[in-house]
């Protein structure tokens, strides 16, 4: 498997339910259970952010939990990687135009990996966490990349109209 990283250290994951409908949360929990069993990659789900390398966030940000999310993020020691799990965490998804929803978690913390899907499938989540492990490794080798505000952004969803154009999409046929 070319995509499988050399996990010099197993990434420990802390999960934060931000504003999610539970769909992605239970799928994330399903990752820990026998059918998917991410512990075979050394991925351990921990409760304490200070133990963790990877922050997995499900759901979008609202006015009350934005501060909490920022707190959890700040407590994770460097190098750290943030995975936005599901469309709500990426862009706000179906709740994007709610009055209490600020949008994707990128509004509050820098995001490295986006995982699509509503709810994200465990396989997609596994791909995302494996990707996060690669980025974690890169950040560890090159601490400069760790500087806040310069995350290794893998993909930018349409946070800004300009960024939307950068997404590789199925589109633009030749006008006939």
């Amino acid at each position, binding site marked *: 498997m070319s995509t499988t990283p050399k996990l010099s250290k197993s990434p420990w994951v802390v999960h934060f339910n931000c504003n999610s409908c539970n769909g992605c949360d239970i799928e994330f929990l399903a990752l820990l259970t026998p059918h998917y069993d991410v512990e075979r990659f050394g991925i351990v789900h921990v409760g304490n952010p200070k133990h963790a390398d990877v922050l997995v966030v499900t759901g979008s*940000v609202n*006015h*009350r939990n934005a501060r909490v999310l920022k707190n959890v993020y700040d407590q994770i020691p460097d190098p750290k990687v943030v995975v936005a799990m599901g469309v709500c965490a990426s862009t706000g998804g179906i709740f994007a135009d709610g*009055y*209490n929803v600020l949008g994707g978690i990128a509004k*509050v*913390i820098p995001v490295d990996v986006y995982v699509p899907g509503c709810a994200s499938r465990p396989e997609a989540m596994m791909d995302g966490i494996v990707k996060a492990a690669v980025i974690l490794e890169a950040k560890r080798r090159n601490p400069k990349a760790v500087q806040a505000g310069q995350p290794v952004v893998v993909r930018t969803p349409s946070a800004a109209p300009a960024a939307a154009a950068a997404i590789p999409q199925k589109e633009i046929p030749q006008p006939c």
Partner: protein
Amino acid sequence: MLTNVTEIPVTQLHGEVWALKQQGYRLVTLTCCDLGDAHDILYHFDKDYTLKHLRLRLPRGESLPSITDLFFAAVLVENEIQDLFGVTVAGMVVDYKGRFLLSEGAPVAPLNKPIGIGIDIRAKAPVAEGGKAS
């Protein structure tokens, strides 16, 4: 369709709710709708799968008497109405003072219809506390 609805004035609310409690009804929930100049508040009760509704019309600015002394189950929903519609509910057993579902930075009374045309009540509050920090 909603049947079995009794329209009552605010002053009779306690008496009616008390009577229903005596008959063994269970409070299902409250529903508030914004009518523009007033709030339409429905109390849903249930007994053996039969629903009974009390409906009262509360002009804007008036406060709603709480029924939490009769039905403690109403405490969450009354706080919710206070948050989302800006209706003051008087005499609640537990009062979250408008910070039940919403917090600082969130819009005020977001479920009210905009008064007049062109005012978008859903306009987002500038930036939340978390947004500033990043």
